[in-house]
């Protein structure tokens, strides 16, 4: 009796009074849970986002719960008491472990240790040299055989400096961040199907993908069974979970041994999505031009591609090529023209096929998607740079069977295959330059079946190739071309400058994706490449001894590979994406940037308004935007109802947005509000976690 009385006392007294950096929940002398706040920053800078972790250390055998606790339990909660102007994101939950208890009870939680992550946005008005204290009331349920609720008031005090510095916990926090599900789609196919209340996902076999798990995140009162993951003998995984679609969830897997996870929405595949979007958006389809018009636009767009700045250096290369070929007979020239055009067709039809394949796998693809991949741009930049140095005369490529770099040589010496590759290369650089015509034509193509997409890309290819086909078919016009001579070397050197200009443009794209660091590391890598080709050019001439040549080639390779290893491997890949992500700029919703004046004006005019409070560091926000807001059906409905979409981007501190959030009693994002037309005093607020149907329902109420 006395013992149980003591137990109750011990459990009840969960350190009250002054908050501490670390607080313990004690039962019978055992520390069930120790709670503390850790910061990624030793010193914080005004307005610069950093991460706070709520670190829970549990007694062996005891566990706390995940965001969705499973059949029993409740998730850990954090209530913030932040200084003025500060904001906190939602808890970012590392993936849990599933635990099966007697009686077929499955729960999701953490044992040992967990760090729950929260992005903190400090006020921009902080004075360096001062200190701030962040306070939080955390509460949790910790269970072994029995369950005991715990709570703690924790706080952390951090100095303010002009520039932020990393703390000793930065690595711990970064490690836990890798266990938080990504808002991006998984890098492998997940094909969902639904039949009789059972959702099934098929994940094709891959040696890189191991230990696949699924954790459900059902909506309020959405009933969900225990996910069952099976691995077939050939290595393919299947996930089965009893639930109605759509079901949110997390797929976790070991990719090349590293723990990775992704937020997903389980619903029947692309077919069903297309059906919904075409049902819900007849306006969008009607607004598009008929097929012949789209094909014409594609053709015109293709011609215009030749005039685009990013093609200019390639055009100059082609002129160079034609100059070289002017001495050949007309039939040869025509064949070169046809080979060149085949290269163009090859690229465009290949691209079309890839898009058709991606469409079929359900991934949303936007035009010039390949230029959204920083590694792709990096490779192109390296090729362009080396090519420019070659034109400058830094080195000569005399080896047979060399790459795209010596296009002019290839076209001259290796005949039609050279022209073919020139066509491929020219088009490769042209893809991101979509003119106004091409944009419309493509907008059409992406909503069309595979055959039409291929026709579209064919017409673009034809447009781009037509001037060359024409020129090569009428070789007589070649007589206007100047005769070859010593000036050609000068011309060749001059041609390097448009290439350097192209390089600048490529770097500007990289800057948009990877920030200033991305440009810097790329430039450093290019510098090492430059040195490598200079070594090659200076010591590998025909006059050098074989020994010198071998040493030079090894040195050149060493410099190039070392530069790649060091500058790209450690610097470039770690560079963070800039505030404006590539995906966002492709947003089809015409967001208006938030200002209170704009919102007031719209509401006074009786317009329905949808405000998306978001930030780049907010994974939930990005996930909602990708899966529930920027969808064809929602886009169409926004257009149809005349709702004005307003984006309050809180990535960087913005007092106006902070004030607007506060007006709704919020301290962080995500947050969504819809003002119905003419009823500005009856705003509809949406939950933090959205599904497409929630957004559609709310939008319909805005009429």
């Amino acid at each position, binding site marked *: 009796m006395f013992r149980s009385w003591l137990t109750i006392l011990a459990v009840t007294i969960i350190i009250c009074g002054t908050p501490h950096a670390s607080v313990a929940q004690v039962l019978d002398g055992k520390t069930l849970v120790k709670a503390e706040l850790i910061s990624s920053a030793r010193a914080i800078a005004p307005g610069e986002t950093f991460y706070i972790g709520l670190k829970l250390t549990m007694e062996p055998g005891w566990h706390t719960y995940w965001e969705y606790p499973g*059949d*029993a*339990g*409740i998730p850990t909660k954090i209530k913030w008491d932040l200084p003025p102007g500060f904001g906190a994101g939602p808890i970012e939950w590392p993936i849990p472990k599933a635990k099966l*208890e*007697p*009686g*077929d*009870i499955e*729960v999701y939680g953490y044992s040992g240790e967990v760090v729950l992550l929260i992005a903190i946005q400090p006020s921009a008005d902080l004075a360096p040299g001062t200190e701030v204290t962040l306070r939080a009331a955390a509460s949790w*349920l910790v*269970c072994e*055989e*029995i*369950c*005991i*609720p715990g709570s703690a008031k924790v706080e952390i005090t951090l100095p303010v400096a002009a520039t932020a510095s990393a703390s000793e916990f930065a690595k711990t926090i970064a490690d836990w961040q890798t266990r938080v599900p990504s808002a991006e789609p998984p890098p492998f196919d997940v094909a969902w199907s639904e039949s009789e209340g059972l959702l099934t996902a098929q994940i094709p076999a891959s040696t890189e993908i191991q230990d696949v798990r699924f954790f459900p995140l*059902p909506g*309020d*009162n*959405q*009933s969900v069974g225990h996910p069952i993951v099976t691995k077939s003998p050939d290595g393919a995984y299947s996930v089965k979970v009893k639930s109605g679609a759509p079901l949110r969830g997390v797929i976790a897997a070991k990719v090349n041994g590293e723990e990775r996870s992704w937020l997903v929405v389980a619903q029947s595949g692309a077919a069903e999505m297309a059906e919904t979007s075409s049902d819900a958006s007849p306006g969008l389809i009607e607004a598009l031009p008929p097929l012949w018009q789209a094909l014409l636009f594609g053709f015109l767009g293709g011609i215009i591609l030749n005039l685009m700045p990013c093609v200019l250096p390639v055009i100059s290369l082609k002129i160079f090529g034609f100059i070289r070929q002017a001495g050949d007979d007309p039939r040869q020239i025509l064949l070169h023209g046809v080979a060149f055009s085949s290269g163009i067709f090859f690229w465009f039809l290949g691209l079309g096929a890839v898009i058709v394949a991606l469409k079929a796998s359900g991934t949303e693809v936007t035009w010039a998607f390949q230029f959204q991949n920083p590694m792709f741009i990096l490779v192109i930049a390296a090729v362009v740079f080396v090519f420019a140095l070659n034109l400058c005369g830094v080195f000569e490529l005399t080896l047979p069977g060399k790459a795209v770099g010596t296009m002019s040589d290839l076209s001259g010496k290796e005949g039609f295959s050279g022209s073919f590759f020139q066509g491929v290369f020219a088009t490769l650089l042209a893809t991101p330059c979509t003119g106004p015509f091409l944009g419309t034509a493509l907008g059409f193509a992406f909503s069309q079946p595979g055959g039409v997409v291929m026709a579209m890309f064919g017409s673009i290819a034809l447009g781009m190739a037509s001037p060359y086909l024409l020129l090569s078919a009428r070789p007589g016009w070649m007589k206007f071309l100047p005769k070859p001579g010593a000036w050609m070397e000068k011309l060749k050197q001059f041609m390097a400058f448009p290439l350097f200009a192209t390089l600048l443009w490529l770097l500007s794209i990289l800057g948009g994706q990877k920030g200033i660091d991305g440009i810097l590391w790329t430039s450093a890598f290019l510098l090492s490449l430059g040195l490598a080709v200079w070594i090659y050019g200076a010591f590998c001439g025909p006059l050098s001894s074989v020994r010198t040549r071998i040493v030079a080639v090894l040195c050149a390779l060493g410099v190039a590979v070392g530069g790649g290893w060091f500058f790209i491997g450690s610097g470039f890949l770690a560079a963070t994406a800039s505030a404006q992500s590539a995906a966002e700029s492709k947003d089809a919703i015409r967001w208006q940037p938030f200002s209170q004046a704009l919102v007031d004006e719209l509401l006074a005019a009786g317009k329905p308004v949808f405000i998306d409070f978001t930030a780049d560091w907010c994974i939930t926000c990005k996930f909602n935007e990708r899966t529930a807001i920027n969808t064809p059906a929602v886009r169409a409905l926004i257009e149809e109802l005349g709702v004005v979409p307003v984006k309050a981007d809180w990535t960087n501190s913005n007092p106006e947005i902070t004030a607007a959030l506060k007006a709704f009693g919020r301290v962080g994002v995500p947050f969504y509000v819809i003002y119905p037309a003419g009823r500005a005093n009856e705003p509809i607020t949406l939950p933090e976690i959205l599904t497409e149907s929630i957004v559609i329902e709310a939008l319909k109420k805005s009429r």
Partner: protein
Amino acid sequence: MKLHLIATALLFTATMAIASPEVGKPAPAFTLTDSNGKSHSLSDFKGKFVVLEWVNLGCPFVKKFYDSGEMQKLQAAHTGKDVVWLSICSSAEGKQGHHTPAELQAKLESIGYKGTGYLIDADGTVGKAYEARTTPEMFVINPEGVLIYKGAIDDKPSTDSADIAAARNFVAAALGEATSGQAVTTAETKSYGCSVKY
């Protein structure tokens, strides 16, 4: 007599195996002994509304309702209106919530238990037949023996009794609607609480 018992038990187990509790379908039948040694069968209560409450007096989610007296109030209000309120404890012997009938009598007396009966299901048969996973977890059965509600006790998943006042009690709502001849608006929710200690 013995043979008859075994046959009943077998039949009973067979019924259990096929019956999965579904709203709108007949609730699984059962017979259990209460803290006073009295046997209760679901079939005894045909013609009355029956509430089943999965209970574990050591679970903080259950204590939330008993320590604040809210569960007793709810029990008294409904048993007063001719509703049968059965609390069922499926904690296995040696696990939290399992008590001998003698211990229980004292405990129920001290907390002022107001239900019809506190049934002991130490082998978990009835809990598993109802797929009860948490304490508390609530079931409402109509006079025809059909399940009309299953799930959480209310819509505020916490262990804090201060949350009860503002919460929507699903059991009271379902009984209110069903006794006045209306359809139950919220007939199924996800229950919250400790896991049942099978």
